[in-house]
């Protein structure tokens, strides 16, 4: 088991390194020049060279990449002299745009994106599993068909459509909620929830539809297994059969995709955050892309990759515990 864990962790490091390298190269190939952007509207060649040197962009790309990797563990200095900035472990560099350490920016925005992701996840699990299991138990009936048609319809609506519709209906015409302005959970829990209700709903509707379809089919599959028949034959009450035996085994594939989805969302829901004006990691990413702020883009990409890879490992470990065969 320990050897398996070590192997997996090395794999994670490899994936992150590859993503880091690819992002670096993509930015290197782009026509944008961060030094020229930082230098201002007009900039003499001499000054541009000074700025480029200060930003470390006069180094060859492999050297910049090496410095970045070493910097993650050993820390780095930006500039020299009494006002040089030092960023310690884990140093992901500084934003070209505002000279804030990328790590601080990420940690500042992460609670916002986590609030969005976790709240939405709770909503879609309840909605999706509820609809899926109900449909599976009433397979072929009117309720099943209604739920599934509804799920297909909702899943086919892109989030930027649902989000804008929700804003229009609930806020602009209905006046039921104010325009969302993110409020931290710690200051005002009620305001936090009220302001996130719409973004949660927009995201949850999309995911709930997919989860309803997924859980319906796994539930149908599970309920057709011989052990269910056995359990029924033994005279177990229906709710015990459904929940303890059917749902439990049907949950496994659902949890697999849930881990991945939550992992991806933790690193920011770019569209949802942009439409609702939520200052999360996704919004940070969007703004950084607009300004060619490469260190921030790289930081968010790594964070996203980290969460997704982490979710994968967690799921695999869960499998490994349940099923010793996957350990090899």
């Amino acid at each position, binding site marked *: 088991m320990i050897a398996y864990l070590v192997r997996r962790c090395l794999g994670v490091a490899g994936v992150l390194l590859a993503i880091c390298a690819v992002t670096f190269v993509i930015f290197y190939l782009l026509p944008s020049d961060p030094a020229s*952007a930082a230098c201002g509207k007009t900039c003499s060649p001499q000054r541009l060279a000074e700025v480029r040197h200060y930003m470390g962009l006069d180094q060859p790309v492999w050297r910049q990449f090496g410095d970045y990797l070493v910097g993650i563990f050993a820390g780095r200095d930006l500039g020299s002299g009494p006002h040089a900035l030092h960023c310690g472990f884990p140093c992901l560099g500084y934003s070209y745009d505002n000279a804030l350490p990328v790590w601080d920016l990420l940690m*500042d925005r992460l609670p916002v994106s986590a609030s969005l992701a976790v709240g939405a996840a709770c909503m879609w699990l309840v909605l999706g599993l509820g609809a899926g299991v109900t449909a599976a138990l009433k397979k072929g009936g009117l309720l099943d068909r209604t739920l599934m048609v509804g799920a297909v319809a909702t899943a086919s609506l892109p989030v930027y459509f649902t989000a804008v519709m929700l804003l229009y209906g609930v806020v602009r015409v209905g006046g039921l909620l104010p325009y969302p302005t993110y409020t931290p959970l710690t200051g005002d829990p009620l305001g936090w929830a009220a302001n996130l209700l719409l973004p949660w709903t927009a995201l949850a509707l999309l995911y709930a539809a997919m989860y309803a379809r997924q859980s319906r089919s796994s539930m149908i599959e599970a309920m057709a297994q011989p052990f269910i028949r056995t359990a029924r034959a033994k005279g177990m009450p229906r709710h015990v059969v459904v929940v303890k035996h059917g749902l439990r085994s049907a949950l496994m594939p659902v949890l697999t995709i849930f881990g991945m989805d939550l992992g991806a969302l933790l690193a920011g829901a770019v569209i949802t955050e942009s439409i609702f004006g939520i200052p999360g990691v996704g919004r940070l990413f969007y703004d950084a892309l607009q300004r060619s702020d490469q260190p921030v883009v790289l930081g968010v990409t790594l964070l996203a990759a980290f969460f997704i890879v982490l979710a994968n490992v967690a799921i695999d470990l869960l499998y490994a515990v349940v099923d010793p065969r996957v350990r090899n």
Partner: protein
Amino acid sequence: MTRHTRAMSASLGASLALALLGACTGNADDDGAGRHQRPGVSTGTVIGGTPVKGGTLTVLSDQDFAHLDPARNWVMPTMDFGSRLLYRTLTTFKSSPGKVGSEIVPDLATDLGRPSDGGRTWTFTLKPGLKYEDGTPIKAQDVKYNVERSFAPDLAGGPDYAQRYLAGAKDYTGPLQGRHLDSVKTPDDRTIVFQLRRPVAEFSYTVTLPTFSPVPASREKGVQYDLRPFSSGPYRIDTYERGKKLVLVRNTHWDPATDQVRKAYPDRIVVQQGLKRGQIDDRIIASSGPDASAVEWSDMDPASIAKVLPRPEVRKRLAAEQTGCTDMLALNTSRAPFDNLELRQAMQYAVDKSAQVTANGGPALNDIATGYLPPSLTGVRRADFIYGRSTTGDVEKAKKLLAEGGKPDGFPATITVSTGDKTRAEALQQSLSRVGVRLQIQTVDPSVYYDTIGDTKHAPDMAISGWCPDYPSGSTFLPFVFDGRTIREKGNQGNVSQFRDKAVEKRMDEIAAMSDATRANQAWIDLDPSIQRKSPAVPLLWERKPLLAGDNIAGAFGHPVWTGQFDFAVIGLKDPAKSQG
């Protein structure tokens, strides 16, 4: 179109669009063509009357400030915000809509500066009793220190006029390593003397830039000064979470008796950042609760205009001053086909400028440009109509010039625009097809637009490009846009046409050396048509900056110098009790 589809396209459009230009100068009494088409939006007038002291003013923004550090602040609306609220400069602009707003008055200084040595030396004296937010006195040395900071490569991005004008500054790289600049002298705590490389007639205007505001050396924090500039103005920073929220509170050490411009009506100013553009418009139009005491930071979404103009009670809360920027179609003069004068001149007649107005938000937000210099720089008189008065072009004359240029059947040409300007490129494509010019459109993301067209070796034949003067003087416009010596191989900005003309450059140097500001300004105005005759670019639009103010806002108008941004010196509330906090 139904209401909700409009709301939707507004929100979608906002995520794609990105304003490429800063914004604005207002000129209420220009005699422009097309004035009759303009619906009655508030230009040259003050929204909401005179404010009452107190309350919280909210600013709703879709973005963070690029830089609040006065040495690095070179985005017009942010220069307005910074120099009206947080730092005072040696001189500043009057707080008034229309032309009066481009006039300067002393701010930190007692007068507009005293030139000597034929305009090569400028002396300013600081008013007595000026204080920072901690009550310590503002010294002439602190103004010198911030001027020096603007040379540091670490603190890049700010106005570069100090680097252009100061003597002996060639290899100077800022004070962070302890070196100082000999050409700025401070004989005592209240006197500062600038020694320039050449006569600069309009130096009184130059020192309105945030570069010429005080930063005490003891407050130096390098790049992190951006997060918390030390205040010499009427407000100080309470909290600033970049990209989220900025809160300003009163600086109790600011003395209104020393300040003839800033009124500082609100007790607090809260800037809420990272919101969505279309939603900001909707909130301010609705003006419910605290939104009534809010103004918007960025241009109103063009899609919102249909929600505003038909409703008089909302329309009167819309400011739409001219940005003072000129939007142009740059022709790449470095190679065929536009190394040919006749073919370039043909484009002046071939372009349908009315179609550009329509594609860019309509006549409420645009005037047709008839010259390179914006009306704010030319005064009441507009530049001559070199290429006729038709706003839709003159196909016959264009064809004749094409024939003279050896291309009677037209030619293929490339144009690069940012994604937000695609409709405008299509309108150009259509109007140029009338004379056989087949335009091939390439769209690029706004974030890489200027780098793409600024790569001179791979530059397209045409590009939409604009320039905004830094203060009302032709010296901040034509030399940046048409001086061939400013062209850089990569990251080329300003002279997108790559226009190199010895006669024009010689004349620019002559005008720059004039010691009489009025004469120099007239010379710039006269140079404009002679450059137009050489046709390096087709002037297209003088845009306006549309900004909405809430129902409870008073004293709001677009300031003519800062691209039409609301003047934060005098904005306030009708009823402070209605605002929250």
